[in-house]
Each structure stands twice: as structure tokens, then as C-alpha cells.
């Protein structure tokens, strides 16, 4: 970076941009210019800091001052106070929720203390639209080293030694995948970056592409050299316009610098990257479906083998890796396989990025070493459950994963432990649920998703999931019978065993794991016709507490179906046969006289 004394880093990821961080950038620039400090302080638009809960984030370096929830109108004060007078703007500092003290240095925030940032190393640090900033942080050094000093076999050996496994969810050893593609003999091979992040609630790939697009390009070029491919394709969701824009800029800049194109860095290696857009189909995250989609077809999976490494895009050998996997590659070459392998557990090396969301205090993106416990993630980094409620469950692995409960909180997180606990790593979504969430309804939500996203090719997934959904619907409607729970378990197991691709093989997981961990809730729905969390509408009964009712008639006037009767100044009554459970009466009552049972 140049000779500026102060750098104001402003997050311009999707989350913070939705809260006007662009205006914050503009205003900071204007104020700095007004003070005549344009040579002294610089405003940098960066990628995601991960602390999305309190966005927009502005971080001032060198002293790591971390301002949260900055509004465009705050720019003036930041410039006049902090940049001109060197005084921190106390009211914008992050306050530690436990000690209630303002945190002066972001390094001492609980949110960051336990994190190790490898894949996210540049997110929130550099301007993603400027290749020079990436290069200044050792960018493209790994590519240079590999091209000038290593054979493809030698480079693949380093990846194998590092123990890196696929971060898209499967956990297949990355080095081995590369080696299989390398061994295939063919005049044309492809490397593909899977950026079809379809798991609702996971946004790590988007953040990496928005915050550090060059790391993916560099890793793909290394992958191309190792496997003998001259062409790279990035399959990205059309729902991520900002990531697409930043990738386009990055590709253009890399070509200009001769880091993509012909004879890269003076070697004999040619490699270029193109974008392919998804169009909203979850199943396209499955690699064979993704390849068909890139060919312009419906994104339906096909039976493996043949694996894409042997027969993939346009029937040529194709190596598919996920965004986060790629983001680890350059660091492994720069810092060595042994360094990478020293982080994590015996069988899962390195770090994993998780997207914390749901009922947790610090929603955001975190990167932690494998082997950390769920308790550390949720309660230390995540800051515990919102509004002081009680933790109930955490869904890992997205719609294909399962829910984990209190007793699983001390399990070290890695690929194998999560599977043993009845869930999976998946792409790294972590949705936290509290006592107000009904687990039957949660399972129904995920099934609704799978039914919608099933491609329809194989019957177990197409028909089976629909049946599972209908059974869950029956239960939440209060029409469930005891045998339905066994039906769910049987059918779920059959779908898992007989579906064609990963989507169907995992789709019953949310149902099976909630039955395993919350059998009592299912029983309450089926046997007692009650929803303990008070979520399932059909099972709720609205009643008026006689002692509290003053007969103000507010509820009766609010009721859209005329289910409430009673004269002025007399106790009112709700007719359960007319009530549509809209909750309008409860909202309107000022005397806590309407309760839900």
C-alpha cells in the first residue's frame, strides 16, 4: 500500500451494501477531501469482515479501530474526530456485550479471537477490485513458484501432504482428485470452480468471491497447470450480481498482467477463465448436474462413475472444486503443507468457514480451525443466543444436513465427527435455533425446500420427499397418527438408500435427525395435538383470560371473522370453531388477556 497514514476500510459486501455502505464510502471521501487530507487518509472498499450482524463496518488502520453500524451521516464525525484529531468516536465502537465496555482494537473482540483466517485472509483487508493489493499480500506468488520450480506431480504432492479436503461438503481429498484428472490422457481438459452456493443460509463462497476474487483465479491456474487443463470455468449463481461483477474485473486485470492467457509468467503454460451462470437450481451444486447445466442442459445429475475427472464437461476430463477449497490453495504453497497440516484434527486439516445465522447474537461469517467445538462457535464467537433465550438446536450442512443438540455441543467439529453425530459438514451453513422454534415445522421447512429443488429424475427423491412433506403437513395440521412417525422413519431410510444423487441421499436427514433428537415434540403433535413451541397454527388455541379482560372490545373489533363475542365492559369469548388463528386479537389487546395455548 502507498504512503497514506490512515486507511479507512469500509465493507462493501452484499450485506453491508444493503445498509448503505456505498454512501458511507462516498461521504468519507468527501469529508476527507474537505479537510484537505486526501494524501493522508485513504478510503478502501473491501470485502466482508464477517461481522454482518453489526454492519456496515468501518475499520481504521493502523490501530484497528472497529466502528459498527455506521450510517452515511456518521462520516463527518469519523473524519473530524478520528482522522483529524486522533480521538475515537466512542459511540460507534463495538461494545462487548458481557463487560459492556467499548472495544478499542478489533483483535480483542471475542468474535475474532478464536478465528484463524486462511480462506478469508484477504476479505475485509484489501480492495477486491485492485489486483495490486492482492499482489502486495503475496498474491500470485504461489502461481509463480509452481510454474517456475515445480512439476505438476510435485505440486499435487504438496496438496496431498497438506491433507486439504473438499470444502463444498463432500470432503473428498483435493490432491487425490487433482491426481486422477492429471493421469487422464486427453488433449483437452477443464478445471471448474463450483460457485453455485445454493444452501440457503450459507454465504461464504459469495463473500470470498466478493472480497478476494483473485485467490480463486490464482488457485484455478495452479489447478490447470497440475492437471493439464488450459481452460477454467466458474459456474456462479446469477443471484450474486456483485460477485459476478468483481470476478469480471479480476479476470480482466489478471489478463492485463499476464497472469491469465498465453505463456503465463514466461512459462509454456496457457490458461484462461470464463464465467458460466446458474439459473436458480439447488441440485446444480452436485458436480454432474453442474456440468450438464454448463452444457446448456437441464441440471440433472447422472450416475457416477464415470466421474467428472474422467468424463466431465463436453465429455472431457474435468476437475471440479469449490470456491473455499480454491481459496486455501495459494496459502498452502506459500506457507507449506506441513504448516497447513498442523492446523485441525487428525483427518480434517486446516480451517473451515461457517456462516452463522438464525437466533444467534453475532450473525456473520467466521473461519475457525477444524476441531473447535460447537459450543465455542455458538457461545464464544457467536455470542450466545439472541434475547437471552435457550439454545435448542443447530442445523449444520443446510437442507441436507441434520440438527445437533445440547449434548453434541462439545464434539470437535470435523467431517467425520459431524457425520457420526447424524449431520454433516456441508458447505458450512450453521443455523441456530432457540426454544421458540418448532422442530417439526423446521423439518417441514427443509422438506419443502427439497421437494421444490428435486430435479425429478429419480422416483425416490421426486415422489418420496413429496410424501414425507405430506406426512409432516398432516402432523402439523393436527391430523397425525402414531404410525406416521414410523412411516417417516421408514420412508426416509428408503429415500436415502435409493436416490441417485447427493440431494436425495441426504434430503431425509432433517426429518430423521429431528425425530431422533426431538421425538417428544413429534409425540406432542401427534398424540396430544399440541405444538410445544407454539408455532404450528392449526394446533394453537386462542383464549381470553377472564381476570385480565376489561371488556374494551378492541379484540372483537380486530377479529376479521367475527369469532369474538361479548358486550362492552364484559368478559369476551373466542369461538374456537370460527377462529382462524391470525393473532390479531392478541396483538390488539393491551391487557395481556389473550393467550395462546
Amino acid at each position, binding site marked *: 500500500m502507498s504512503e497514506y497514514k490512515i486507511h479507512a476500510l469500509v465493507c462493501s459486501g*452484499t450485506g453491508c451494501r444493503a445498509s448503505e455502505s456505498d454512501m458511507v464510502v462516498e461521504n468519507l471521501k468527501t469529508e476527507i477531501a474537505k479537510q484537505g487530507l486526501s494524501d493522508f487518509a485513504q478510503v478502501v472498499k473491501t470485502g466482508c469482515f464477517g461481522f454482518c450482524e453489526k454492519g456496515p463496518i468501518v475499520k481504521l488502520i493502523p490501530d484497528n479501530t472497529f466502528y459498527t453500524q455506521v450510517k452515511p451521516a456518521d462520516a463527518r464525525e469519523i473524519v473530524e474526530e478520528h482522522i483529524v484529531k486522533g480521538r475515537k468516536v466512542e459511540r460507534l465502537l463495538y461494545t462487548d456485550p458481557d463487560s459492556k465496555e467499548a472495544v478499542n482494537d478489533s483483535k480483542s473482540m471475542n468474535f475474532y479471537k478464536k478465528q484463524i483466517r486462511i480462506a478469508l485472509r484477504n476479505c475485509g483487508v484489501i480492495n477486491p477490485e485492485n489486483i495490486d493489493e492482492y499482489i502486495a499480500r503475496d498474491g500470485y506468488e504461489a502461481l509463480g513458484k509452481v510454474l517456475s520450480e515445480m512439476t505438476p506431480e510435485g505440486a499435487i504432492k504438496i496438496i496431498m501432504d497438506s491433507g486439504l479436503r473438499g470444502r463444498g461438503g463432500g470432503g473428498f481429498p483435493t490432491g487425490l482428485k487433482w491426481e486422477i484428472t492429471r493421469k487422464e490422457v486427453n488433449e483437452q481438459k477443464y478445471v471448474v470452480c463450483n460457485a453455485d452456493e445454493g444452501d*440457503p443460509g450459507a454465504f461464504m463462497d459469495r463473500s470470498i468471491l466478493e472480497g478476494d476474487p483473485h485467490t480463486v483465479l490464482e488457485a484455478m491456474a495452479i489447478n490447470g497447470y497440475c492437471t493439464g487443463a488450459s481452460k477454467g470455468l466458474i459456474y456462479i449463481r446469477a443471484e450474486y450480481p456483485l460477485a459476478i461483477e468483481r470476478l469480471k474485473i479480476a479476470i480482466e486485470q489478471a489478463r492485463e498482467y499476464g497472469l491469465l492467457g498465453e505463456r503465463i509468467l514466461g512459462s509454456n503454460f496457457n490458461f484462461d477463465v470464463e464465467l458460466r451462470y446458474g439459473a436458480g437450481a439447488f441440485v446444480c451444486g452436485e458436480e454432474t448436474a453442474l456440468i450438464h447445466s454448463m452444457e446448456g442442459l437441464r441440471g440433472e445429475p447422472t450416475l457416477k462413475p464415470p466421474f467428472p475427472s474422467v468424463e466431465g464437461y463436453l465429455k472431457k476430463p474435468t476437475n471440479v472444486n469449490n470456491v473455499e477449497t480454491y481459496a486455501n490453495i495459494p496459502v498452502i504453497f506459500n506457507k507449506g503443507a506441513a504448516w497447513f497440516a498442523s492446523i485441525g484434527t487428525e483427518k480434517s486439516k486446516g480451517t473451515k468457514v461457517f456462516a452463522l445465522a438464525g437466533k444467534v447474537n453475532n450473525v456473520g461469517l467466521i473461519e475457525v480451525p477444524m476441531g473447535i467445538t460447537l459450543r465455542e462457535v455458538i457461545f464464544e464467537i457467536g455470542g450466545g443466543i439472541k434475547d437471552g433465550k435457550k439454545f435448542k438446536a443447530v442445523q449444520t450442512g443446510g437442507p441436507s444436513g441434520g440438527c445437533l443438540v445440547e449434548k453434541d455441543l462439545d464434539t470437535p467439529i470435523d467431517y467425520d465427527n459431524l457425520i457420526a453425530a447424524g449431520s454433516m459438514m456441508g458447505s458450512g451453513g450453521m443455523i441456530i435455533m432457540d426454544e421458540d422454534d418448532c422442530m417439526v415445522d423446521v423439518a417441514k421447512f427443509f422438506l419443502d425446500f427439497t421437494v421444490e429443488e428435486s430435479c425429478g429424475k429419480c422416483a425416490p427423491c421426486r415422489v418420496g420427499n413429496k410424501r414425507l412433506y405430506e406426512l409432516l403437513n398432516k402432523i402439523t395440521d393436527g391430523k397425525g397418527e402414531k404410525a406416521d412417525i414410523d412411516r417417516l422413519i421408514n420412508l426416509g431410510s428408503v429415500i436415502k438408500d435409493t436416490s441417485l444423487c447427493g440431494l436425495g441421499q441426504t434430503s431425509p436427514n432433517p426429518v430423521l435427525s429431528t425425530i431422533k433428537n426431538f421425538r417428544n415434540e413429534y409425540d406432542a403433535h401427534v398424540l396430544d395435538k399440541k405444538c410445544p413451541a407454539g408455532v404450528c397454527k392449526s394446533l394453537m388455541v386462542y383464549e381470553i383470560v377472564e381476570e385480565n379482560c376489561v371488556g374494551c372490545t378492541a379484540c372483537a373489533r380486530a377479529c376479521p371473522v367475527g369469532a369474538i363475542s361479548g358486550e362492552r365492559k364484559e368478559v369476551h369469548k373466542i369461538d374456537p370453531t370460527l377462529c382462524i388463528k391470525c393473532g390479531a386479537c392478541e396483538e390488539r389487546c393491551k391487557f395481556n388477556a389473550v393467550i395462546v395455548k
Partner: protein
Amino acid sequence: MSRIKVELKKEQIDKIKTICQSFNNNGGELINVLHKVQGTFGYLPAEIQEVVAQELNEPIAKVYGVVTFYSFFTMLPKGKHPISICTGTACYVRGAEKVLDELKKELKIKVGETTSDGKFSISCLRCVGACGLAPVLMVGNKTYGRVAPEMVKDILKEYEAM
């Protein structure tokens, strides 16, 4: 799916042809072509699909198959201000359903429909990745975060005069 009859003008057909040519009339680029065409026309009625199929020398059935497979493509026109509500897991857990109910009540349409004056349409999407702001709602390209049901009326008001 209800069917809308569309008569394409010559310049519209030419526009589709130009888009196809920009992808060398290559059938493998079908999805990219459809993205471009939908970006231009707003939706993909059968008549447009016929032209695309012809230009790329692909069966109409294949084009139709692709259009209906991917949720991003639509055969019905959207409202002037298309409203998308995120129904991803994070938004669901934080009450997206209630916001959606309020929207449906206010606009008197269902998901996938357009108001009779053509102003608003509602669709659901899966995760825009702004989970920190859940629940999230988008009107056109503008994102609204932490939306409570009570805010829906005010948000709609911003667009009513437009």
C-alpha cells in the same frame, strides 16, 4: 401455467437473433442466451422460446425444458417493481413467513402473481446471502433488511407513486 399470447414485432425478433449471434448460435450457451434474452424482455413467453430454439438449432422442447427447470426463468411478466422475499433458512427462522403473509394481504396477490395494475409482483427466492439482515426483502435491486410485517406498508408506499 396460464398462457399469454404474445405477438413479436420484427425488431424484437431481430433483437433475439442478435443475442443468439453474440453467442455464435451455440446450443451449449443456451442458458447464457436465455439470461440475456430475459434481461432484455423481462420474461420468456413461448413465442420468444421458439425464436431462440430456431436460432440455436435446438428442439423447442429442449428450450422449454430448460426454461421451466430453472427457477430464475419465468414465462410470465413480472410487475414493474418485482418484490422478492428471501425464504432461506436464516430468514425463515427470523420470521420471513409473517412478512410474506403481510405482503400477500396488502397486495391481494399470491406468490408468483402480479397485481392487476402491473405494478407489483411477488416471488420467493432462496437466500440472497445477506443473512445478517434477516428477514430480507428486495424490491427490484434494492435490498431491505430486518423487515418487520409493520414495515411492509411503508415500503410499498415508496413505490406506489413511481
